[in-house]
């Protein structure tokens, strides 16, 4: 097939209309089946999930492995991962011309749905408050603010398939006053109108790609966002293509006129049980941050939906674990897959003994393999959920799942990677380990300057103390050590050999 430089194909696409077909739905607050389709993209069956990216890539899964080994039909990408140079400079991501520059930059396949939001999921609370005109974000070099116009301009330049509208939510704040809640709804309405207006500036069916809009449903009581919701229904219902739901238990408050729209959950699920609860309320689409959290902790997820039926002779009083801790040495000679019957790359090509070895040796491939596996587990989980809804057994299957499995994911025991800077979450605050505590303090206090120094050290190569070199360069990258605490890091010189080659290294550099 002739594709030229790839440009012609983009412009031949039909209008970028998102279609959501509800395939099965019994009542308002009940599980439903749907199909999300957009010309040129693989249709996404719901309930389903999007891959959560970090700097354009699902952590540990390089883009070639994404193509070969995942079944993800869509990914979620956050603007805050790309604009650390803002506002001093125009971030590089905005330089390339041509269609779908974000998709090309992050090497996302043509047929994968690209959902775009301002913040990572879950977002890290910012000490900077939102204002009437600007929303606070966190980039890898610190907190920034972006205006609604900036956000729309970014969408126009980057051309994602779906843009989640800016929401004014004071993340991390325990209690929010009524006055503040009023503001939330006012600002969110203004920002939603903004992104619609900017999108509608683009000629329908023209050369330039238009995006689809998911409008926020705020995590506040209905009466506090009633004006916003009324206006959504009366004035914007035909201009938005979906809803982004920040609190699944408020789905009840969603006006009926918006029920036909797909619902993307930004209510962070802590476990598969919580996913099921949200699904039971009629949620369609998810991001599942616990996948990468489990991976980083060295936990290979191990559950299926519906849950297996317990063999009569093996009745156990205790519930089954939702995952296997690969830091434990129990599987060091086990040549069985991580999960029997799992069809992922890790399970079909490798075995527990190897994954165990990789963790024991702190080799990056260990995380790669269980991340692929964990995504496959969730893909199967959602496909099981859809079959269960289809056959009308979801309620029973959900109860059986809850009876079969532990309510929570296993506690992490091993050296999970050091929580990496702007990826870490507020919940980690209380239980931060010692080695994390320092970084967090600095972070929490006067901004991110100290933290940034640590990042910079990641790129430095110890040139003198050979004994610590291996430890530093491998473990720092996966985040196992905090470079600030590693002996011998002082006096590192930045390896800057952008021109020509380096001088011969000592023997260990070559052969170890």
């Amino acid at each position, binding site marked *: 097939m002739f594709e030229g430089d790839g440009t012609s194909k983009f412009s031949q696409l039909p209008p970028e209309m998102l279609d959501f077909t509800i395939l099965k739905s019994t009542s308002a607050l009940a599980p439903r089946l749907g199909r999300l389709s957009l010309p040129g993209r693989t249709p996404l069956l719901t309930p389903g999930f999007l891959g959560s990216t970090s700097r*354009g890539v699902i952590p540990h899964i390089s883009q*070639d492995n994404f193509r070969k080994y995942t079944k993800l039909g869509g990914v979620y990408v956050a603007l805050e991962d790309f604009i650390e140079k803002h506002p001093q400079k125009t971030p590089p991501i905005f330089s390339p011309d041509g269609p779908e520059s974000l998709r090309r930059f992050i090497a996302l396949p043509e047929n994968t749905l690209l959902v775009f939001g301002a913040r990572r999921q879950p977002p890290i609370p910012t000490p900077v408050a939102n204002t009437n005109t600007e929303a606070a974000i966190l980039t890898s070099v610190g907190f920034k603010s972006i205006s609604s116009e900036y956000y729309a301009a970014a969408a126009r330049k980057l051309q994602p398939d779906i843009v989640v509208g800016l929401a004014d939510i004071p993340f991390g704040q325990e209690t929010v006053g009524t006055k503040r809640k009023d503001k939330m709804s006012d600002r969110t309405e203004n920002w939603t109108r903004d992104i619609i207006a900017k999108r509608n500036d683009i000629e329908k069916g023209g050369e330039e790609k238009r995006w689809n809009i998911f409008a926020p449903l705020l995590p506040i009581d209905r009466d506090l966002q009633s004006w916003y919701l009324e206006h959504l229904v009366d004035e914007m219902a035909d201009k938005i293509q979906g809803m982004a739901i920040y609190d699944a238990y408020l789905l009840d408050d969603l006006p009926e006129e918006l029920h036909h729209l797909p619902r993307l959950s930004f209510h962070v699920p802590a476990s598969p049980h919580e996913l099921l609860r949200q699904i039971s309320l009629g949620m369609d689409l998810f991001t599942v941050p616990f996948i990468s959290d489990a991976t980083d902790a060295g936990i290979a997820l191990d559950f299926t939906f519906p849950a297996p039926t317990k063999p009569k002779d093996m009745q156990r009083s205790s519930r089954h674990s939702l995952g296997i801790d690969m830091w434990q040495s129990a599987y060091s000679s086990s040549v069985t897959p991580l999960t029997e019957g799992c069809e992922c790359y890790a399970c079909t090509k490798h075995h527990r*003994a190897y994954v165990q*070895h990789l963790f024991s040796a702190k080799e990056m*491939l260990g995380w790669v393999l269980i991340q692929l596996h964990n995504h496959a587990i969730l893909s199967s989980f959602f496909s099981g959920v859809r079959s269960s809804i289809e056959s009308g057994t979801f309620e029973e299957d959900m109860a059986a799942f809850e009876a079969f499995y532990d309510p929570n994911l296993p506690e992490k025991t091993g050296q999970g990677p050091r929580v990496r800077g702007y990826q870490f979450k507020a919940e980690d605050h209380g239980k931060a380990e010692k080695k994390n505590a320092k970084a967090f303090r600095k972070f929490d206090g006067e901004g991110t300057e100290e933290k940034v120094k640590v990042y910079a050290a990641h790129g430095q190569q110890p040139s003198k103390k050979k004994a610590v070199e291996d430890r530093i360069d491998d473990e720092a990258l996966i985040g196992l050590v905090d470079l600030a605490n590693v002996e011998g890091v002082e006096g590192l010189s930045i*390896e800057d050999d952008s021109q*020509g080659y380096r001088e011969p290294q000592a*023997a260990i550099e070559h052969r170890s």
Partner: protein
Amino acid sequence: MAPVPMPSALTFELLGKCSVTKARAATLHLPHGPVPLPIFMPVATQASLKGLTPDQLEESGCRLCLNNTYHLGLKPGQATLDAIGGAHKLQSWPHNILTDSGGFQMVSLLKLAKVTEEGVRFLSPHDGAPMLLTPEHSISLQNTIGSDIMMQLDDVIATTSPDLARMKEAMERSVRWLDRCMQAHKNPERQNLFCIIQGGLDLDLRRECTAQMVERDTPGIAIGGLSGGEAKDAYCKVVDTCTGLLPEKKPRYVMGVGYPEDLVVSIALGADMFDCVWPTRTARFGNAITTRGVLNLRNAAFSEDFSPIEEGCRCVCCRKRDEGGLGITRAYIYHVTAKETAGAHLLTMHNVQYQLDLMKRAREAIIEDRYPAFLHDFFAKLYSDKGKYPEWAVTALRGVGVDLLSDDAS
């Protein structure tokens, strides 16, 4: 006393020789398939290449990689390797593996290692218990690992050591240890044991050692103890001297070499096989190996460079989207380096592919008998003008009939 010759589990098929330099092109048939020579072997120290899956490594063209005996002996350990059935099964790698003896790691990683006639004494990095690595133990481990090419335990000391008596002792001990290794080797019909020529930078010692080693008739021969920070001129003299005394029909492996210009010069001096951690290690710091030199993609200048890592590179990262590649740009590598492990994986794939591709181009040039022209072209692309050519390379190549500074590129 040389023990009885061992059977060999390889065949060396010589395909062509450069009519000017000592460069050779061959195919080495190993238990897990043929590999082209000259060859660069990526180092998968602990049965994994820096985050790449075996399939990604295979895709980059690699058919022979290294594992380190010392590391695998510690983790997962001999008992586990035995239970699983060796390193190929551990890492699901269907192609060839070469293992070192473990001695080098001991001496270089462990300050307290001490060499005696019996073996290398050291303290366990786990619990500080005194341990001993003998030639017999090293071979037993490598037999369990099941590597296609095994290395003898040798007595390695820095080439820059001024102690000639110690150097001679190490050389002679390495010969005695080879005999013990050959004696201990249980699977000569399916694993190839290579000897390692020692002798520091002293050419007489090297000659003597070469004669002794050749007499023992191992399937392949390594030149060891180099790339330890010695002057490049001295390195080249050692390689040139040793290859001059080696039988034509055996593979020659120079251990620990991997900079592109070192590779092309060493090939001209008659070496066939190389390994080095540098290409994969340096990827993790954002360093991309290209025909025009190493680019440090962490440099802010690349943050807006939307060209491929190297134009024309056939690796999966650099290939364009409409050619089935990812179309990864320098700007994207800048964006993810040292922040996402996947950034390191992408650049590692590029660097491995660069090294293998360089060997492939060298091999084609040798087969077509235009290796001198290849050398001219290689250095012309790497350095902006002839004044910047490294003197050691000019001298070494002049010694085998190629004058890099002349305009005649034939």
